[in-house]
């Protein structure tokens, strides 16, 4: 059908007719759906907004556009086979996901982890944290409209870290590296040297980032006093990670649980006083700096030794009945795995406590009354990954 003919036909059907005026001319609310395909929702997230002018009066997040049935699949496959799936939860930080899952299983079966493996885990987790924070800030500024430059810088550093990951684990993003009772392959001395070199370059990168952004008036104007989250609400709503600390609550699972060997390292927990976007941004920047100090200590102190518990089993892994909840401080917040075993080779119940999803609980509270343009920023400052939100 030609265009004209098509249009004519459709017009006869009344497509083009403007709607008749309504009786009540009340200034109505503008209902806009942001997403699932929206340039700034990091993928497939949707927010149903009601706007009064440009002011947000209602915001309902809609999830599930990336619901990949991770938990259901995990209940049908062996404990080990779920490990590569955890990579795909928060696909920016696969190694911390590995760790959280390994930790939960180790709790479930009471497995010990050799010291060297613990060090490697810390190193990888802190690298992951740095690249996650850098790219999350990059995405945040991207949403602020900065045509990609900060994101490019973040990805430039990220590539260096990913190279390390690939050299060690074989894959850039989906590392599938940790095992119950240790790690899959050992690091070589060359790798450690390369890692040290990357760590040496990181402070310069953070400085560059800060020069580019931290004192930029536009950024400050857009971020300060926007999307404020009060600490009481944050705790009550189960917010974790940098977002919680930006609200001034001192709660870092690395300090609280001392999982792994975090009690051996000296590092500080930066806290914000305003709970706005700028604080979240700065807390991430400062956490990157703290991570660098942890990395320096870990790379200095890493001992020799095995990387796998000799008693650990790969095939025929069947935990005794029972349950365990293991959690770590992932870059985005508390990542927990809750496992129930019925003695079989597959978990009876496998549950992921996704920080991203729970951190979104307060999205509406933070956005109410602010401008639409702020919504994407507030959303960006939460730092979520859809793979984890929807699982």
């Amino acid at each position, binding site marked *: 059908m030609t265009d004209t003919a098509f249009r004519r036909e459709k017009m006869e059907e009344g497509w083009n007719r403007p709607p008749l005026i309504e009786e009540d001319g009340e200034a109505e609310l503008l209902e806009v759906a942001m997403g699932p395909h929206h*340039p700034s929702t990091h993928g497939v997230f949707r927010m149903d907004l009601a706007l009064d002018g440009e002011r947000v009066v209602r915001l309902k997040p809609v999830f599930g556009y990336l619901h990949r049935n991770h938990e259901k699949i995990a209940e049908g496959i062996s404990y080990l086979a779920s490990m590569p799936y955890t990579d795909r939860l928060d696909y920016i930080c696969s190694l911390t996901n590995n760790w959280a899952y390994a930790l939960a299983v180790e709790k479930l079966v009471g497995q010990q982890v050799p010291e060297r493996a613990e060090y490697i885990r810390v190193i990888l987790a802190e690298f992951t944290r740095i690249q996650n924070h850098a790219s999350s800030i990059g995405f945040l500024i991207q949403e602020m409209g900065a045509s990609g430059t900060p994101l490019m810088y973040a990805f430039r550093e990220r590539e260096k870290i990913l190279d390390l990951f690939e050299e060690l684990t074989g894959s850039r993003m989906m590392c599938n590296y940790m095992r119950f009772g240790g790690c899959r392959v050992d690091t070589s001395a060359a790798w450690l040297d390369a890692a040290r070199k990357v760590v040496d370059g990181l402070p310069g990168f953070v400085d560059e980032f800060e020069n580019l952004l931290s*004192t930029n008036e536009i950024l400050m*104007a857009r971020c*300060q006093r926007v999307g404020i989250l009060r600490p009481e609400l944050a705790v009550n709503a189960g917010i974790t990670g940098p977002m919680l600390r930006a609200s001034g609550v001192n709660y870092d699972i690395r300090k609280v649980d001392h999982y792994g060997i975090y009690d051996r390292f000296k590092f500080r927990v930066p806290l914000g006083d305003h709970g706005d976007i700028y604080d979240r941004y700065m807390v991430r920047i400062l956490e990157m700096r703290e991570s660098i100090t942890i990395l320096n200590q870990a790379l200095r102190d890493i001992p020799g030794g095995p990387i796998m518990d000799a008693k650990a089993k790969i095939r025929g892994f069947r935990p005794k009945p029972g349950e365990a909840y293991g959690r770590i401080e992932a870059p985005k917040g508390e990542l927990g795995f809750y496992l129930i075993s019925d003695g079989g080779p597959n978990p009876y119940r496998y549950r992921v406590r996704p920080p991203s999803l729970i951190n979104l609980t307060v999205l509406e509270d933070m956005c109410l009354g602010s*401008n639409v*343009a702020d919504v994407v920023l507030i959303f960006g400052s939460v730092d979520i990954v859809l793979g984890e939100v929807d699982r």
Partner: protein
Amino acid sequence: MIVWMDQFFVLLRNWLVGFLPVSLQGFAGVLLSVVTIVLLFPALFALAVWLERKGLGRMQNRLGPNRVGPFGLLQPIADGIKSLTKEDIVPLSADAPVHFLAPVVLVVAVFMGFAVLPMGRNMVLVDMDAGLLFYFAMGASTELAVFMAGWSSRNKYSLLGAMRAVAQMISYEVVLLLSSVAVVMISGSLSLTKIVEAQNHYTWGLPHWYIFTPWGLAGFIMYAIAATAETNRSPFDLPEGESELVAGYHTEYSGFKFALFFLGEYLAMFSISGLGSTLFLGGWSAPFSFLTWVPSWIWFFSKLMLSVFVFIWMRGTLPRLRQDQLMNFAWKFVLPFTLLNLMVTALWRFMGEGWERWVVCSAILVVVYVVMARVSLYKEHIRPRRYRYAD
């Protein structure tokens, strides 16, 4: 001075026209100049697009387009062919005639502005007594085109984007007008040729460009800010702010209509930079007296490209403002300061020749700038912060 090079285009035109009967000469001359304008600037547009993509690439540590033709120079042409042959979609509920007219109106309005820009000595299409007024009159029509585009698409993002764009453009148009008034006050003419002539003197080898006076510098900065906003360039590109409004008022445009918008935007950028360099940077005059032998049009176009590069540079660096901040900035900072600058300009004239006026005028402007900047930052609660740590 090598006159023939300076007057190359003029002589070329006269020479070509000389082949025609006298009765047609006037017509042919005009036609030739017009055709030059209509072809030259789109070519420049292609160059600028290429420059932008390459420049942004370089700022972001990458190469940018380099596969299509030498150095990727043919990239814009490929884009042109693609756009030309792409399907043209007009949404059914859109207002088809207005939807069709909007890009055309935009391009026409922008092209008209070039009529009064002197691109070199004796190189101006029409040298009118009210040239500047004409320029602004034409510039005012672009707002209508933008509105037409957004409204006729009948898409929420489009309309919202268009309304934002219009609000932004009208706000900064005032600043644009008023900062040019200062120049007119000193040069005593609305004719752009005369304004250039007025700056084309040298003392100690340095030109009398208005940017080298306190009021001129202040005016230029305000002009530059307004020009950036007027052409919807970063950091004022929020009408097409993709992070919240998808693609703003041209969301529903495809094919060459979209390309026309793109073209119109860049042409507007050229014309506004051309006007800026004419008003404050001495137009086609050379920066040093010993360089006057270089053809005037070279100076004009190098100034033009330089300002285009600054536009690109800003785009590569800055995140964008929010609508309210942008409007507040226009009305509460830029406009008052521009009005003050008018007064200072008057003062400049009344103080006569002498060093005192330099001191007094600079002092007034600097003090007021600092105070206003401080106050407005304070009022918006924008300040750097300190962070506390928990161990």
